[in-house]
């Protein structure tokens, strides 16, 4: 199952709707970094409400994806970490998600907009702007 990546101006939005297999997650990772680079997106919001288990492998994929996005120049905000997922992750001591986390996608978008407004980047790919 391919997870769609939606573009809203300079922000890419990903809402994971079902449990992801390892392959789905790796696929999403490569789709995302390609899309960030193609669009010079400055922000990425990832909603993981639908993930009701995040084992150490999935946590690592999320962390790696965040690092890759940051290397390219995009900020990442994660939303919707389930309470019992947070509990299991901390108890397991699995490497915690290194991105900023918020409750929902709306807050994620707000947070990204605030961050982007203070970056002062010059946009070379003008056509990507949606006013």
């Amino acid at each position: 199952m391919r997870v769609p990546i939606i573009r809203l101006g300079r922000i890419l939005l990903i809402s994971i709707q079902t449990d992801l297999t390892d392959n789905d997650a790796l696929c999403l990772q490569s789709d995302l970094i390609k899309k960030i680079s193609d669009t010079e997106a400055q922000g990425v919001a990832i909603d993981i409400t639908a993930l009701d288990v995040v084992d150490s492998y999935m946590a690592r994929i999320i962390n790696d994806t965040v690092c890759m996005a940051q290397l390219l120049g995009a900020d990442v905000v994660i939303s919707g970490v389930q309470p019992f997922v947070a509990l299991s992750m901390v108890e397991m001591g699995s490497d915690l998600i290194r991105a900023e986390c918020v409750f929902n996608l709306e807050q994620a978008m707000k947070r990204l907009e605030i961050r982007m407004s203070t970056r002062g980047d010059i946009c070379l790919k003008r056509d990507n702007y949606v006013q």
Partner: protein
Amino acid sequence: MSSDLIRVPINGISDIICARLTVRREAARIGFSTADQTRVATAVSEVARNVINYATEGVCTLRDDSNSDELHLQVTIEDHGPGIDNVVEAMRDGYSTGGGLGAGLPGTCRLVSLFNIESRQGLTRVTFSLIRKRA
């Protein structure tokens, strides 16, 4: 109240999701809290992933061992792969022969009430239980 065993084959990556859905459903049926359902589903996910990574295939067995005092779900995950060279080392945080973080087994151990691992060439068996006093 020991009931029938539930067996879930672990032959491929998609079986990891199947196994953790099955264990979550069974934990809910027995009466474990949502937090405990998530703990045991996460534990199954970790150990089942090792089966796929290091032994290619195995089987996950669930047993309801509850009695009038406590809720008790026992999970056994076994494979007939190469075995673990050094079980004590494998339980140590940071030990990995697979290029992982080596966090899987020690992390799983922290999520459950009882944890046991036996391994030799041709058989690795990880058994763990979630046990809670009845309210």
